């Protein structure tokens, strides 16, 4: 007869138990029944905050309901277990379902701990644990301005970042202890972290004890023990977790004085047929509030139920804070000090970096440490600690990374023993991963994720897995190249040269001669961009359907399927007449109108079938395409310069217009932005551009390889006090060099990062002609400048191209009824998507 296992709780660990049991129970000798209190199947709580960044509930789901069905698991959702009858060995749910069990696995997790502060029940006070909590927060945040979080620990800081992302004007973090993340980092680390967080816009209050939450039904302010008051209209409590041991208690199982179901090394509770795993279990007198130990518990119980032997050992609690945009990590014994260990500390207050490592007194082993501001070495240090690797003569090298010597950096992974645990969430060792790479030829990150599950938990090990793949391949004598995709065995640079030499002008020519298969959404736009950079022909003539969708419609697609219209406004200079035309067009086609961050005007909400008519009016008024849709030159921003400004030393506007008109329409591996400032006050922010120009008394300073965006980078100085002609010549060379050699979708800053020799090498190529290519670069650029044509003008005057701008081929006049708008502040906005 089949035995039955009942699992109470369908969270991350409860799910992992099911997955492990299914894979171990090959003879299918168990029936599995799962009760979950939440309304949806288990989801990834670790990445919960990504819900605010656009991930959906499905994206976060561990496995869909169909997975449970396919594996014969009975899953009851929205139905918590309320009673356990240990004599009869059966459980009863809230809805009255009764199930017998042979083994019972409690995986009820924990709830947010809410301290008994008067007023916590008021509206606007939240906890941060489930998708429902986040939905509630999101809708409340719409009308809130000032928020606070009680708790400056790992979760509290994550919640604080979420409030920032929700758009609150002020976000405060209230911590009772005198430092942040008191369980993970030391005093000095906390100081560094605090100043970094303040830089993000969080306001941090330490040693603050909240006494009361006031407000009439809804939270209005917080009162503290020191008499101070903070007005807030939203509060998230993240003061720790409380194990969900209530059903265990009812059943008379032993629980700890401060909560948690007591278990032995086999994770059995005081009733040997009942196990407890995950955050509800009190093992070795502690609650392990992380997912990796929970997964290990699931492994232990699944193994012993199918008849194996395994014990749960004290688990490493090293952590790395994800997502907030600041690296923070602690590993091993982070707090051990003299005389029990030697500590080495590195601090750079200007950059906000603090690092500390603790070393055994004999200098042989790494015991633990703290990293704030830069945790790149986290994985290596953790591995060194766990594997008791013998330390090198200068152990500080480990925490500082390679300084000078370029090659050392990644040799680290190869030095690890095969047993080294690379992914602790899924317990995958270096040996497991290398086996897949060497024996089964799995050489992509996705492949490794699929076959070993490494990197699918918290994701912290992903950089290390990538290193392992690259290094192992190298050690196998395989030369690792960044090939474009499965259809081309070439790097972008190789492909660029081949397409040029062979003179291919269509994607099909390139694929037929150099590739295989039918192409995809990765190689098509990359090849389309190469062809455009080389020949500068109208992109919709021969290669329309290989363009990225925005290029194909010469406009950016918006949330409801309509498009935006961005005419070029070089240097941000515009006549009143042209402004009026933009206004008239916007009125006529009911377009939402906004000044962009790039000194021009964006008109949103155009139906695809209206685009040619809209552009016809704009073109007739003297406007051109602004290429806001292309991987091409966007804007050359300008300040007002010496024509009006009392400080200006050169005419920035005239030069920025000249620069913008020179490079307009230039297709490149990624978008290009530029700016010209009229003096060193730098009002045009030229140092944050791919190429930026700043006026000097004698001419111009040229900066290259900066950007804003995801990872802001200041540009580096390439040349000083050059005249306008030299400046353009250098930019020609710089851009052609970039266009020919960068990987697809790589901006100039990361391109320079990867360049051996960095800015000095770049200078030698562009100024000293180290490659002897400059004459060719200039000639190629001149060709592109001379062959420029406005794409929209060509569409407007070409009936065949115009015809492509319809939503329904069989009803060309009809607009997409699905494109919905909502009114907002006297204009419209796209209807919210699901």
């Amino acid at each position: 007869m089949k035995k039955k296992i009942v699992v109470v709780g369908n969270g991350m660990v409860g799910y992992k138990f099911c997955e492990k049991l299914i894979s171990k129970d090959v003879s299918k000798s168990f029936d599995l029944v799962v009760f979950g209190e939440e309304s949806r199947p288990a989801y990834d709580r670790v990445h919960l905050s990504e819900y605010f960044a656009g991930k959906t509930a499905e994206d976060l789901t561990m496995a869909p309901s169909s997975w449970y069905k396919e594996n014969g698991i009975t899953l009851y959702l929205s139905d918590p277990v309320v009673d356990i009858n240990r004599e009869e060995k059966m459980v009863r749910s809230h809805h009255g379902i009764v199930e017998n069990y042979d083994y019972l696995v409690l995986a009820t997790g924990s709830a947010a701990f809410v301290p008994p502060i008067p007023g916590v029940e008021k509206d606007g006070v939240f906890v941060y644990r489930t998708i429902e909590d986040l939905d509630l927060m999101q809708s409340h945040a719409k009308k809130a301005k000032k928020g606070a979080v009680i708790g400056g620990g790992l979760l509290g800081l994550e919640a604080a970042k979420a409030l920032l992302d929700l758009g609150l004007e002020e976000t405060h973090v209230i911590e009772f202890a005198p430092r942040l993340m008191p369980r993970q980092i030391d005093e000095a680390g906390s100081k560094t972290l605090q100043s970094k967080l303040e830089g993000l816009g969080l306001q941090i209050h330490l040693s603050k004890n909240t006494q009361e939450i006031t407000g009439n039904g809804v939270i209005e302010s917080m009162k503290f023990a020191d008499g101070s008051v903070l007005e807030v209209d939203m509060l998230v409590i993240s003061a720790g977790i409380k194990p969900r041991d209530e059903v265990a208690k009812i059943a008379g199982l032993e629980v700890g004085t401060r909560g948690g179901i007591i278990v032995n090394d086999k994770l059995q509770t005081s009733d040997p047929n009942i196990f407890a795993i995950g955050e509800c279990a009190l093992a070795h007198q502690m609650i392990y509030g992380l997912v990796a130990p929970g997964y290990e518990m699931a492994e232990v119980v699944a193994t012993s139920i199918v008849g194996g032997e395994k014990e749960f050992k004290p688990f490493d609690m090293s952590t790395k804070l994800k997502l907030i945009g600041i690296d923070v990590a602690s590993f091993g014994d982070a707090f051990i000090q003299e005389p029990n260990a030697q500590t080495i500390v590195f601090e750079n207050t200007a950059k906000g970096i603090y690092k500390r490592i603790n070393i055994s007194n004999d200098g042989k082993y790494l015991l633990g440490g703290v990293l704030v501001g830069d945790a790149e070495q986290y994985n290596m240090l953790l591995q060194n600690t766990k594997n008791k690797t013998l330390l090198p003569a200068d152990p500080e090298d480990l925490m500082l990374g390679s300084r000078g010597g370029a090659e050392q950096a990644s040799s680290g992974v190869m030095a690890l023993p095969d047993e080294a645990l690379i992914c602790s969430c899924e317990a995958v060792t270096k040996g497991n991963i290398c086996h897949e790479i060497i024996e089964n030829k799995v050489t992509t990150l996705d492949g490794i994720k699929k076959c070993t599950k490494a990197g699918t938990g918290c994701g912290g090990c992903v950089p290390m897995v990538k290193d392992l793949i690259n290094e192992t391949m190298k050690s196998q004598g395989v030369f690792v190249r960044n090939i474009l995709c499965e259809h081309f065995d070439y790097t972008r640079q190789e492909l660029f040269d081949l397409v040029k030499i062979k003179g291919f002008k269509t994607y099909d020519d390139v694929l037929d001669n150099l590739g295989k298969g039918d192409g995809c959404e990765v190689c098509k736009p990359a090849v389309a961009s190469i062809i455009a950079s080389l020949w500068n022909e109208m992109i919709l003539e021969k290669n329309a359907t290989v363009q990225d969708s925005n290029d194909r419609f010469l406009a950016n697609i918006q949330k409801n399927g309509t498009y935006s219209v961005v005419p070029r406004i070089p240097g941000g200079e515009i006549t009143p007449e042209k402004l009026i035309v933009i206004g008239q067009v916007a009125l006529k086609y009911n377009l939402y109108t906004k000044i962009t961050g790039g000194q021009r005007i964006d008109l949103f909400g155009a139906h695809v079938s209206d685009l040619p008519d809209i552009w016809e009016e704009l073109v007739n008024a003297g406007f051109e395409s602004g290429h806001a849709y292309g991987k091409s030159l966007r804007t050359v921003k300008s300040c007002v310069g010496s024509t009006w400004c009392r400080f200006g030393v050169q005419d920035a506007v005239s030069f920025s217009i000249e620069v913008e008109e020179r490079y307009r329409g230039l297709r490149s591996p990624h978008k290009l932005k530029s700016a010209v400032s009229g003096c060193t006050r730098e009002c045009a922010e030229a140092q944050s551009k791919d190429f930026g120009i700043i006026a000097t008394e004698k001419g111009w300073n040229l900066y290259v390889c900066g950007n804003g965006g995801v990872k802001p980078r200041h540009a580096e100085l390439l040349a000083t006090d050059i005249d306008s002609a030299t400046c353009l010549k250098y930019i020609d060379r710089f851009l052609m060099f970039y266009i020919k050699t960068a990987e697809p979708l790589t901006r100039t800053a990361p391109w320079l990062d990867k360049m051996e020799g960095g800015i000095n090498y770049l200078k030698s190529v562009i100024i000293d002609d180290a490659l002897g290519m400059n004459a060719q670069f200039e000639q190629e650029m001149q060709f592109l400048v001379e062959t420029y044509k406005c794409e929209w003008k060509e569409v407007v005057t070409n009936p065949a191209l115009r015809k492509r701008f319809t939503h329904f081929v069989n009803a060309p006049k009809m607009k997409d009824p699905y494109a919905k708008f909502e009114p907002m502040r006297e204009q419209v906005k796209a209807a919210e998507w699901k």
Partner: protein
Amino acid sequence: MEVNHSITITTMIAEQTITWHVACSVEDIPENGGACALIENEQIAIYNFTRRGEWYATQNLCPHRQQMALSRGMIGSTGADNEPKVACPFHKKTFSLKSGECLTGDEYSIKTYPVKVENGQVFVGV
């Protein structure tokens, strides 16, 4: 030009009635790309996979964020057996043009429809 004629075709599995609708002419769908047709009040994306000499049709709605956009996506193929696919222009989720299955690991799938070309006209079976 909506309903054209109705025929019964016999498949291996069962007998099924398909109504063929004229969607457009061959030139209306760009080579190696797609376009959308309105058929019986449904938005259907039709793809002219010229490279393979094949035609496909799917729902136009991308199940990810409910956007009417698949006809504007890029088509291509993947894997050892060259599974034909379309990538949604919004977030590049990809779907098999044969089975409608999501190839980027999500739970949802899209509807697919039979297509035939006769005398320069494209027919979709609903």
